[in-house]
C-alpha cells in the first residue's frame, strides 16, 4: 500500500513542476516589468539596468525558473522561492502573495466542499432514480434539468438567485460570510448547480452501464430481489467512476468560486483574485492559480489513493506489483554498480 502511495506521489512531481513552469512562463511573458515598477517611470537607464541585475531579471530563462523555485538573493533584493512558500510579491501590497492566499483559501474550501456535498447528496440519488426508469417522464424531466444546470453561467445563476431571493423575496441575504450558515445557502446552491448536473448525468450513465453487465443478470437469476440487486450489486460498481468525477468537480468548484464569491461579497480566494484582476496585480493572480492547481492535484491524489482502498482490483495489483518491483530494482543496481 505504501508503495502504491509513494508511486502515485512520485508521478505527481512532474505534474506539479509542470504547473509551476507554466505559471512562471506566464509571469515571464507578462508585459509589465517588475524593475520598472520598482523604480517608477523616471528612472535613468543605468539605474534601470542595475535594478534588473539586482532583481535577477537579466539572467537566462531557465535560471530565472530555478530562482523562481529555489529563491534568489542579491545585495538589494531577495526572495525565498516557491518551494519555501514564496509565491511572488504582490504589485499592490508588496507582500508575499501567499499570505493573502492562505488567509482566504479556507473560506473558499468551505464553500466548495458545501457545494460538492450538495451536488452528491442530490445528484447521486436522482441519477440512480433516472437509471432505474430510463426514458420515463421522470427521467426526461431530470435530464432537461441537468442539461440546464450545465448550460447556465455560474455568475448568472448567482445574480438571478440574488435578484429573486434577496431582492424580491427577501428570504436570503445578498452577502455571504462563513460564520452565517443561512447566508451561505444561495452561494452554495449557485456553485452546486453545475456539479450537480454533471454528477446526476454521470451517475445515471454509470448505473445504466452497470445494469447492463452480466453479473447483474447473475444476481437476478440467483433470486435476489431487485432492491438488493441495485443496492448491493449495481450501486458500488456504479459509484466508483463517480468518485473520479467528484474529485474533478472539486476543481471546477474552486474555479466557479472565483466567479461567484465577489458577487456575494464572500471573503474567499475568489474575491481576492477578482480584486487582483481589477488591479492588474499579476503576481497575485498567478500565485493564486498556482496554489489552487497544487491543491487540486493533491485532491486528485487523494482520489487515487481512495481507489486503491476501495477497489479490490487495484488493491491486489498493488500487492502483486510489490515483488517484481523489488527484484527489478535489485537487478538494476547490480547492473549499474557492479558485476
Amino acid at each position: 500500500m505504501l508503495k502504491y502511495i509513494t508511486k502515485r506521489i512520485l508521478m505527481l512531481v512532474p505534474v506539479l513542476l509542470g504547473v509551476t513552469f507554466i505559471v512562471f512562463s506566464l509571469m515571464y511573458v507578462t508585459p509589465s516589468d517588475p524593475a520598472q515598477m520598482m523604480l517608477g517611470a523616471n528612472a535613468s537607464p543605468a539605474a534601470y539596468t542595475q535594478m534588473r541585475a539586482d532583481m535577477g531579471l537579466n539572467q537566462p530563462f531557465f535560471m530565472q525558473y530555478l530562482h523562481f523555485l529555489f529563491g534568489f538573493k542579491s545585495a538589494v533584493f531577495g526572495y525565498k522561492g516557491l518551494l519555501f512558500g514564496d509565491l511572488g510579491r504582490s504589485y499592490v501590497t508588496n507582500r508575499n502573495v501567499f499570505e493573502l492566499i492562505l488567509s482566504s483559501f479556507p473560506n473558499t474550501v468551505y464553500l466548495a466542499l458545501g457545494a460538492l456535498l450538495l451536488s452528491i447528496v442530490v445528484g447521486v440519488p436522482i441519477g440512480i432514480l433516472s437509471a432505474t426508469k430510463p426514458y420515463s417522464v421522470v427521467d426526461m424531466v431530470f435530464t432537461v434539468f441537468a442539461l440546464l444546470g450545465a448550460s447556465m453561467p455560474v455568475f448568472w445563476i448567482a445574480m438571478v438567485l440574488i435578484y429573486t431571493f434577496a431582492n424580491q423575496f427577501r428570504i436570503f441575504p445578498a452577502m455571504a460570510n462563513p460564520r452565517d450558515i443561512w447566508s451561505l445557502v444561495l452561494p452554495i446552491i449557485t456553485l452546486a448547480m453545475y456539479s450537480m448536473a454533471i454528477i446526476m448525468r454521470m451517475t445515471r450513465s454509470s448505473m445504466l452501464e452497470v445494469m447492463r453487465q452480466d453479473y447483474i443478470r447473475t444476481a437476478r437469476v440467483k433470486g435476489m430481489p431487485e432492491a438488493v440487486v441495485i443496492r448491493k450489486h449495481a450501486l458500488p460498481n456504479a459509484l466508483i467512476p463517480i468518485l473520479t468525477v467528484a474529485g474533478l468537480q472539486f476543481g471546477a468548484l474552486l474555479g466557479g468560486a472565483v466567479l461567484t464569491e465577489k458577487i456575494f461579497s464572500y471573503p474567499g480566494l475568489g474575491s481576492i483574485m477578482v480584486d487582483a484582476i481589477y488591479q492588474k496585480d499579476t503576481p497575485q493572480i498567478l500565485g493564486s492559480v498556482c496554489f489552487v492547481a497544487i491543491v487540486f492535484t493533491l485532491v486528485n491524489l487523494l482520489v487515487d489513493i481512495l481507489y486503491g482502498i476501495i477497489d479490490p482490483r487495484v488493491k491486489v495489483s498493488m500487492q502483486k506489483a510489490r515483488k517484481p518491483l523489488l527484484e527489478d530494482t535489485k537487478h538494476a543496481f547490480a547492473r549499474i554498480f557492479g558485476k
Partner: protein
Amino acid sequence: MDEILKISGLTVHYHSDGQVVHAINDLSLSLRKGEVLGLVGETGAGKTTLALSSLNMIQAPQGRVVAGTIEFEGRDVRALSRSDIQKIRGKDIAMIFQDPMTALNPLISVGEQIAETVRRHEKCTQNKAWARADEMLEMVGIPADRADEYPHQFSGGMKQRVVIAIALACNPKLLLADEPTTALDVTIQAQVLDMMSSLIRKSDTSVLFITHDLGIVAENCNKVATMYAGEIVEFGTVEQVFGAPRHPYTIGLFNSLPDFDVVSSRLKPIPGLMPDPTCLPEGCYFSPRCPDATDLCRSAHPVDLIEDGHLVKCHHPGSAKEVVA
C-alpha cells in the same frame, strides 16, 4: 410421469428497431425429473431465450412472451408473483451462463457471492451460509481458504467453477446450463464437465444442458433435442437421435463432424445460414438449406411426428442420407 419442466406452445418475440424478432416459435418441450437433456443448436437458434423464459426473465419491454405456458413442477411460471418467482430462482431452478469472465461481481468476494444465495433461500445465519460457501468451493475443486478472494484473482476455468458452486449451493431441482464450458480451454472443459457430471449425479438434479457440441451431449446427457430457428426439430433419447437421426438438420450436424477415420480433404458443412429471425421463410424453416426439400416443405409448416418417444418436425423424416456410423 413427473415432468419437472413442461413448456407448451411457447412463442417469444423481441422488438428491436421497429422489427419483430421471432426468437421462439410454438415450442414444446418437457424435462422429467432426474433427466439430463442436451439442447443442441447453432448460435441464434433461441436456446438462451428458452432458458431465460423458464425463469420468466425475458427482458421487457423489448422481449415478450406472446403465447404458450411454462410449467415448473406444475406451476405456471409466468403467473407467479414477483416474490414467488424470486423464491424459485436460485433455489429450485438455477442457471449458469456461458461467459465466466463477466458473470461475477468484481467487488464482492467469491465466498460472499455464494453465501448470499444460501442466506436468502435457506434463511440461515451468516455463519451457516459461509460454511456452506466453503463447502461448495471445496466441492468444485477450489480450496476454501480462497473464499475471501475476488473474482479477478481467479482464472476463467476457476471462475466458472465458482459460478457452478453458486448455482448448486441450494440444491436446485433444475439446472439450466447455457453453454457452461464453451468459453473455456479444451483441457479445462473436460475437468469442469467431469466435476459437473459427478455433482449432478450425486444430487439427482434435472439438467437442461445447452450446447452446440455434440460430443458433450453424447457423454453427459440421456435425452437430446435439436433446436433450429426457435423450434425443436428433433427430440429423443441420445441412443435414438445419435443412432438414427431423422431430421435433415440433425443429420447435417452429424455429417459436418470431422471423421478421424476417413481420410478426406474437405469438411461437409450445412450450406447456407440460419434464416433471419425477423423474416422467417414460409413452410419449413429449414427448407432453404435442406438438400431434400420438396414443394410441400416450402409451403406447409411441418407437424411433429412421434414414434416411440422419438419426435421429428419434418415432412419427410429419415429420407436424408443416413449417417455413416
